């Protein structure tokens, strides 16, 4: 994958849990495209229609808390979200997102620096987010090398196909 991303910001609040991202009634689904039809349904049922490929989800604290359902990360990735930037993430969602090849970046000041619809330019390796709408720039701690490796392969499945003894 490309380590430079540019997309429009969709802002959400604190404690966006995985029940809100994909409600429990859809957990029987196993097809990624069908799961994606319900991305963010608990907050904004029209999100899948409005979001464009490469757009960036911006969250507050504890993004992805709650259930371990990978459906949440699958839905965001499959609907075209290019990255999730949040003040902090819940552990299991964070891991699921990396495993699926969806960049997740912890950036403490992101909510106050970004407005809904702002255009963001993200440098995964350099650890920088530039808000092209306002000109402001933020830094974040870059992802550890092995996570970047997994992202660059497009996720853990592709990564393990290449490196079968590592997981």
């Amino acid at each position: 994958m490309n380590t430079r991303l540019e997309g429009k910001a969709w802002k959400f609040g604190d404690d966006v849990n995985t029940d809100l991202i994909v409600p429990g009634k859809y957990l029987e689904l196993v097809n990624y495209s069908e799961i994606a039809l319900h991305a963010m349904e608990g907050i904004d049922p029209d999100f899948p229609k409005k979001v464009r490929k490469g757009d960036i989800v911006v969250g507050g604290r504890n993004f992805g808390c709650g259930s371990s359902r990978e459906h949440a990360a699958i839905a965001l990735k499959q609907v075209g979200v290019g990255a999730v930037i949040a003040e902090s993430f819940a552990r299991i969602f964070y891991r699921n997102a990396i495993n699926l090849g969806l960049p997740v970046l912890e950036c403490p000041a992101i909510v106050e620096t970004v407005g809904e619809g702002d255009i963001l330019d993200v440098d995964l390796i350099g650890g920088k987010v530039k808000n092209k709408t306002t000109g402001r720039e933020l830094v974040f701690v870059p992802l550890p090398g092995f996570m970047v490796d997994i992202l660059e392969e497009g996720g853990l499945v592709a990564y393990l196909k290449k490196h079968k003894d590592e997981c």
Partner: protein
Amino acid sequence: MGMTVSEKILARASGQEKTRAGEIVKAEVDVAMMPDLTTILSINAMREMGFRRVWDRDKVVIVLDHVAPASTLLAATVHRDIREFARDQSLKHLYDVDSGVCHQVLPERGHIKPGYLVVGADSHTCTHGAFGAFATGVGSTDMGAIIGTGKTWLRVPETIRVDVDGKLPEYVAPKDVILYIAGQIGADGATYKALEFGGGTVSGMSVSGRMTLCNMAIEMGGKAGIVEPDEKTFKFLEGRTDGIFDPVYVDEDATYKRVLRVDADTLEPQVACPHKVDNVKPISEVSGTRINQAFIGSCTNGRLEDLLVAASILDGRHVHRDARLLVVPASKEVYLQALDRGIIRSLLEAGAVVSNPSCGACFGGHIGLLAPGEVGITTSNRNFKGRQGSPEALVYLASPAVAAASAVMGVITDPRDLP
């Protein structure tokens, strides 16, 4: 420098003498558990990674529990495909729809031991820490790699020690303790950390109560919840396992990120108010709130002692005419014990609906949904918006005693105030 329980278990599982919080280890897994709704994604991931067989057919455990029995064609198909997989892989442990909630079934059927590293494709896998195991939830892709290789990478967590001392007042339960702790620590206060529960109150608790504590570690973002094993633990596991244990205890000079002390003597029943688990208030602040449904069950509070306290409160009383009470034993074993002791009859006669063991009512699955504008009080673990049906419903979390008392009165009620 001493080690915490988590550091010791992860050192053993990764073949090292010592580990420290913050290190990343590659650990060997003792048990890998999958419930029905995440199994297919995990199997697909395993196959796509190029693994044809699971690494150990004795260590992979599948429980068909979330939609049990299947209520939709999709769920029926998921169950059918899982059964085929289990047959094809000659898995030794597939618990079908009659069994119960995975976190109750695993310890009952002898899959959990002190010192084990347990991973499950369900966030409440932390429940098994009640037996002195390090148990944590993962997603399906991680689980695909785990069932293919038996290994996973884990960051050794820092530990928050929670010491609870004193005697819990009448009708104040382990659930009230953990709700109080969640209110203190917050919904992300334990993210990436383990919670170790100790102190005299925890030593005095049943295994069932300890499971309630550990179950909700994830509601604070916790990676694991742990109670050190003792005679009660071994007694529960006797006859369920081979009885050979390698228990792990914390060193006196272990390093904690934070120590929280809770005084049990002064605790009153606690209620987590909508829509966040850490929005916790003492019951005196919310009593009188109208409810439409009370649910007693789940991996948090669907065990025999939970049903017993509910039955004792409903004895000689009846569910309020404007409310309904749904009781779901957490497993077949619990159900049978409750039948033998006359609890199920008492609950039914008091106006409860008693359903077969499943997760459905907890997560907005196939039973017990709330309509728009309705209010539920539940003994389960999450009160997220939309969790139990409509996003316009309100969900309060409480103990079985509070849920039962509220069902009787039709409003949130402190069981000590019942007429």
